[in-house]
């Protein structure tokens, strides 16, 4: 029986990159079928195959790290680089939507009335629910930091509570934002204002949902004793992602909700 004499991780052959790639084909072709031929079958197949791939791929990463011990310090370093680079790519993704917003709002065209917000658009009051949303996410940033410190200090009950509070705040934000979407007097089709507003806040909301899901997985892992006070990179990755989501909201609030009104 030969065993490795190095600290790196040589992964077992896995089917998930293949199923992931093909599920992306099903998702994209599914969107075409849904938009143009009024059929949601392919899209549903794609969503299901994609979800199953994500579940099994990340389940395997947990097996490799927590159960098989493959996440040595140098492997963990690679995982850290990976998460950081992914978040940087997401920053660039949002930069595009902010570029579009500022391009249209700094020099509003004649057909908008030469002003921002455009003529006929009644923006949401930034001091009402949007401000509450800001405080909710800022508070969740505090609670997740409390959770991290509790984890590092071995305070199990504190960690569980703080992580739960963070998740509940994330869910609260999502509910509030969803209700705000019904409150707007404008829709996504209402000119460039509607487009920039809903694309930027919509993708942000999706990222809040993704972040909350990641945190829920962390809570389940924490309850099942996966994390130690010294080794809990999954939680740190979730915390980084959550802080990123919070910062994007702050930019959204200041630019679109506040300056943009």
């Amino acid at each position: 029986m030969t065993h490795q004499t190095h600290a790196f991780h040589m992964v077992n052959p896995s089917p998930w990159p293949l199923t992931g790639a093909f599920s992306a084909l099903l998702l994209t072709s599914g969107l075409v079928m849904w938009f143009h031929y009024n059929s949601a079958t392919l899209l549903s197949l794609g969503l299901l195959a994609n979800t199953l791939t994500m579940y099994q791929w990340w389940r395997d990463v947990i097996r490799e790290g927590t159960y098989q011990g493959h996440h040595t310090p140098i492997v963990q370093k690679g995982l850290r680089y990976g998460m950081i680079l992914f978040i940087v790519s997401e920053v660039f993704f949002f930069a595009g939507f902010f570029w579009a917003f500022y391009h249209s709002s700094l020099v509003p065209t004649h057909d908008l009335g030469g002003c921002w917000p455009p003529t006929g658009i009644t923006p949401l009051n930034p001091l009402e629910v949007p401000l509450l949303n800001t405080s909710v996410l800022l508070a969740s940033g505090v609670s997740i930091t409390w959770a991290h410190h509790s984890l590092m200090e071995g305070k199990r009950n504190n960690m569980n509570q703080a992580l739960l509070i963070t998740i509940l705040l994330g869910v609260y934000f999502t509910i509030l934002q969803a209700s705000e979407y019904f409150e707007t007097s404008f829709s996504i089709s209402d000119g460039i204002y509607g487009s920039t507003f809903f694309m930027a806040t919509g993708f942000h909301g999706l990222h809040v949902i993704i972040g909350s899901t990641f945190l829920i997985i962390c809570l389940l892992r924490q309850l099942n004793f996966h994390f130690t006070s010294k080794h809990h990179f999954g939680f740190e990755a979730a915390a980084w992602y959550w802080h990123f989501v919070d910062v994007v909201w702050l930019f959204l609030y200041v630019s679109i909700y506040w300056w943009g009104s």
Partner: protein
Amino acid sequence: MVWSASPSSSRNERSYWTHAQRHKCGFLLQALRQIAQRTVSTTSRRNFENKVSEKQKLFQEDNGVPVHLKGGASDALLYRLTMALTVGGTAYALYQLAVAAFPKKQN
């Protein structure tokens, strides 16, 4: 809110059964008490007991099984389902592409 194994509760359980026996509360009543205590307390404890070392043993077994199948029969089932959806879906996508590429002529 957090379930945790606490030594004090198991001590109470043992003294409770002894109390029932001592006061001759009847075999049936005692049995019911034992079942109630066992299901309530151990169910919650069973949910969040540290089973990591068992999992470590299972996944470190030197049997040559790749990690995506190493958990057992349910792994194979889920893999087959995912692969079936992927392959089937791809075939369906290619079929729809063929249908879309060669529209039926209408007179």
